[in-house]
């Protein structure tokens, strides 16, 4: 039986505007969050989502069926952002004469920060995240916050599964080295503590 995602996607491919708008509305928030993490530029992110969906609509006759919409959109969004950043850099390259890196910046700002942390914990976690590479941060975020499995992350980031596993593994290792044990224990608070206690009893 096809998934509800697959059915919705097929309705969109058949040219049904309602289905297309439903996809836009259902995924806008997470695409916006993903785009901001990649660019930290709100306008650029909005434009990329617009371009992405305009392209989808125009090319719907050439698109194939998908089982899951979210990873497909994330992958396309990443392409869109990378292309836009590259184009921007090419333009600035023409103006200035120094070389630039063609790399997506995966911002550590404010991301991966649990809500109920004190300012000090917040700072410490940010600093720890700042020590990761862009790719490690992105893989960890897609894994834990967006909840993708390794296979999907490898599709989105265009790397093989083993590389993704390595990125997450190295990232976690670094993260744990930078965080002290008391810090880790401090993370254990409120509902988290309760849930945890219930599990271990």
């Amino acid at each position, binding site marked *: 039986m096809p998934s509800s995602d697959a059915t919705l996607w097929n309705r969109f491919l058949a040219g049904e505007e309602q289905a297309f708008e439903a996809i836009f509305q259902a995924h806008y928030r997470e695409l916006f969050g993903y785009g901001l993490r990649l660019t930290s530029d709100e306008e650029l992110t909005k434009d990329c*989502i617009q*371009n992405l969906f305009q392209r989808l609509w125009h090319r719907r006759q050439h698109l194939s069926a998908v089982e899951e919409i979210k990873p497909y959109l994330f992958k396309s969004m990443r392409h869109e952002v990378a292309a836009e950043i590259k184009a921007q850099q090419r333009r600035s390259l023409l103006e200035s004469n120094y070389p630039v890196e063609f790399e997506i910046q995966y911002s550590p700002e404010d991301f991966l920060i649990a809500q109920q942390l004190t300012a000090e914990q917040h700072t410490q976690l940010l600093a720890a995240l700042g020590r990761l590479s862009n790719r490690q941060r992105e893989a960890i975020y897609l894994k*834990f916050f967006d909840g993708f499995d390794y296979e999907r992350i490898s599709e989105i980031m265009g790397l093989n599964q083993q590389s993704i596993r390595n990125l997450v593994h190295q990232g976690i*290792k670094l993260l744990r080295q930078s965080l002290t044990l008391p810090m880790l224990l401090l993370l254990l608070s409120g509902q988290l503590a309760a*849930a*945890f206690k219930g*599990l271990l009893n």
Partner: protein
Amino acid sequence: MDFTQYSVDDFVVDESFQAFVALADSEAGRFWQAWLSEHPEKKAEADQAFVLVQGLRQARPYPLADYLLPQELQRLRLALNIPAARPQLRVQRRLRVLTGTLAVLLLLVGLGWWQLHRPAAPAGKAARFATRHGQQRRLTLPDGSVVVLNGNSTLTTAAQWTPASPREVWLTGEGYFQVTHLAPPAVMDIAGAPANVKFVVHAGGLNVAVLGTEFNVNSRPGSTKVVLSSGKVAVERQALLTRENLLMQPGDLVETSAVQPGLTRRHVRPALYSDWTQGRLKFDQTPMRDVVQLLRDSYGLQVEVTDPAIMRQTVVGQVPTTTPDVLLDALAKSLEIKIVRNGSHVRFLPASR
């Protein structure tokens, strides 16, 4: 699999362990609970792993303003020509019939008048982009051209550009244009270029036609200015019975104003007029004369300088472009002068000793 060899990190990156953290009452959850009760020696490591996975899962989502989703959905509909709902379609049709009738009537009023009345907005469906005060937006147009809109500005374009028509946009406020070149390299003459490779900006009585280039247009009440960074631009001004044309060179500033409607041209440092797109102004041995000109052109300030010695100085440094006050403050400090601002009137005075 032998989980007794698992380190904290191994637990963290294990997808089945992650599923357990997500939901204790799942297949994976029940498995790990059973396993942990059989292996109490691994409890300390599993504890740490659990806390870390839980902490990472609870990241704060980016805030999304309530108006954004409907606004962006509308923008998408406009771009793709998707009607929002049926009733609205009918209203639009009626409106179009009405505007059509009005246009015919206007035509009948007289050919002379008709010639003056260039369209003030694109016919048919339009896409409109606006910025609030102090907000900047970067837009990519259907042809790949990029426009950076400064605060308090509006850009209107046809919702779709056909390959056969010129690319036209309507601007109020300020915008920096990077226009994609569509003409074959051999076509260098703007006037003679076929309509479909031209890009035309309509702003405050001026038509700015280009093939592909970078330039800044500032159209505020009272005056409109075009500054060319690179390439070639043809500026046209249509008045009651006259038509004025001017071909700009890089570094040119062309202006028309209520006080002096005829096109005037002077040479400026174009970077000063596009720096706002970077959110800062950069001065590098910039003569005060240029700075004073910038204050007038970009911020609409009337500057009065009592001591000619001030005008002979140069400035070095960077300031954010948020408000002119920041710039004035920085100037007062670095030149060691006194700056008095009264509305749009600014006086530069030698520091009193």
